[in-house]
């Protein structure tokens, strides 16, 4: 069984996955008409920023065991073993936000959704695009991701790649597999820019601190 694997180091923060996700969960399944639907389709994947301002695609991890499932008051959250997907039953959901408190990744949102009764606010999160998968499609976020930060593969394949990378890193002769030059350059640039802003020369400390914008002020150590 294939699952969505996230590779944050490759994310360029373009947010195309968010758009694709919202469209995939719309009635029309097309960008332009989707924008005029009510309730307005919203993404279930959220691109945030990682430690060096690199993109970070944040989506439901479909945990097993899932903390949201155990915390759900009305028992609206279940795990579908065949697809390794944690699902919310919108008819049973009572919008109590117990799952918001339980989710360590902060991926659940609360709003109206096409799948629920009109006017009812429900908990909404990634459903692994099961509807698309049933029609031999792949999750919309993966399809939209041009930088391969989101891939759809079996966990065995993903683990093997990771294990190979570890093996290479402990071997003196084999060089680590380089991230394609584009990402490496982009990440190096972001990291360098942040370090410039946040580690002022001792004599210059006051001025630099004044210049550094609050939200880019990250590391002191």
């Amino acid at each position, binding site marked *: 069984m294939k699952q969505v694997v996230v590779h944050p180091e490759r994310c360029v923060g373009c947010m195309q996955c968010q758009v694709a996700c919202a469209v995939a969960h719309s009635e029309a399944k097309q960008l332009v008409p989707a924008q005029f639907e009510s309730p307005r389709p919203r993404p279930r994947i959220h691109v945030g920023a990682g430690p060096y301002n690199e993109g970070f695609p944040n989506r439901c991890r479909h945990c097993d065991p899932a903390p949201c499932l155990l915390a759900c*008051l*009305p028992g609206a959250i279940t795990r579908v073993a065949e697809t390794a997907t944690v699902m919310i039953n919108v008819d049973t959901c009572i919008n109590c936000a117990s799952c918001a*408190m*339980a*989710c*360590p990744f902060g991926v659940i949102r609360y709003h109206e959704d096409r799948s629920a009764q009109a006017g009812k606010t429900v908990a909404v999160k990634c459903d692994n695009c099961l509807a698309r998968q049933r029609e031999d499609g792949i999750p919309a976020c993966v399809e939209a991701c041009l930088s391969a930060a989101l891939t759809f593969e079996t966990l065995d394949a993903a683990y093997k790649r990771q294990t190979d990378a570890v093996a290479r890193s402990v071997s003196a002769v084999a060089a680590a597999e380089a991230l394609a030059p584009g990402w490496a350059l982009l990440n190096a640039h972001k990291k360098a820019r942040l370090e410039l802003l946040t580690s002022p020369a001792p004599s210059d400390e006051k001025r630099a601190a004044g210049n550094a914008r609050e939200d880019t002020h990250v590391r002191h150590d």
Partner: protein
Amino acid sequence: MQYVIIGNGIAGVNAAEAIRRMDPNGRIVMIGDEAFPPYCRPMISMVLEGSVPLAKLPIRQASFYDDCKIEPILGNRVTELDVDAGRVDVNGKHVAYDKLLIASGADPRPIRAEGLELGNIVYMRTEAHVRRMLDALDGGARRALVLGGGLVGFKAAYGLMCRGLAVTMLIRSGYPLSMQVDAFAGGMILDTLTAHGLDVRVDIAAEVFEGKDTVEAARLSDGSRLDCDLVVIGKGVLPALDFVPRDRIEVDLGLVVDPFLQTSAPNVFAAGDAAESIDVARQARWVNAIWPEAAAQGKVAGINMAGRTVPYERSLSRNVIRIFDLDVMTAGVVDPQVITGAEVITRFDPATRHYRQLVFQEDRLVGMTLVNAIEQGGVLMALIQNRIPVAGRRERLLAPGFNYRALA
């Protein structure tokens, strides 16, 4: 192997399911006072407010006991526990155990007043209680008096306001939910409730209830008299441990358990509202009488009873409440006075009415109170529950939605 579970609340139900998964053949006897199918206790407040029908309360099928091959003994309480003989008594019968789980939950803390035998004076703990309240509403109740501003009193008041009743609430602290939220958030909640018509009176008790068959008025400790045709008592809960021999099992407020949810008596476990374990934020023994704790503890207790040793070291007080246009989420320490060396940071944005208080102890986050923008509160909760050191600038965690960058 003979397992006996006292209590068919969420702790007992989750324990039974965990045992059954690990031990397909063991005998499981479940003794419960309530004969209603296993249901979601917090949701009785939503039934009261009218947002959830009574029929949606059960969280398991009526066939739950058969499906899990459980022998239920329902409708009576265990009256005695003999830890030497390894048996409990219910309805005059002995039931022997190899492993016993005490998941008897809690009962409403009783109050002292005259006239408590009158009709339409109810506690709020069970589906039977909420049905009595709905009957009172059907009978035309218009003016309610709610005693207590804790979680249950507060939910009763909110539910009755949603039903259009005039509600007076008597509380001890200056604002409701004083155990759950800090003073600022408490003020926001109080303002919202009073703006919707709640009459709140501080530091006043009800002393006498008057009426013919059902309650008609209450005399209060300030000498005043208040007309009311429904009274809800929500003065907290106490672990339901009448049958527990206190000279044989260590009991503080709740049954004291070790990280494996075992009590001081051999083969006796406890979970849920009846149990007292180490609270991660306070680093002290505490009864966290909340649903997600009871659910998790029950599951882990069941796994341990079935023979696999799994520790549970994540007990944490927490809650999330939505009322009118306010969303409130809290966890861990809300009153910085209760721990040493607390550092507190707060942010309030009057335009969006977003409020956050974060309490740190050394490099750990130990408490949070969030009002509105609660969607990602679980990330903060995970920091508290897993005792993750917070390295970056703490103020970043005050932003309404935040990025993982904030944790670096």
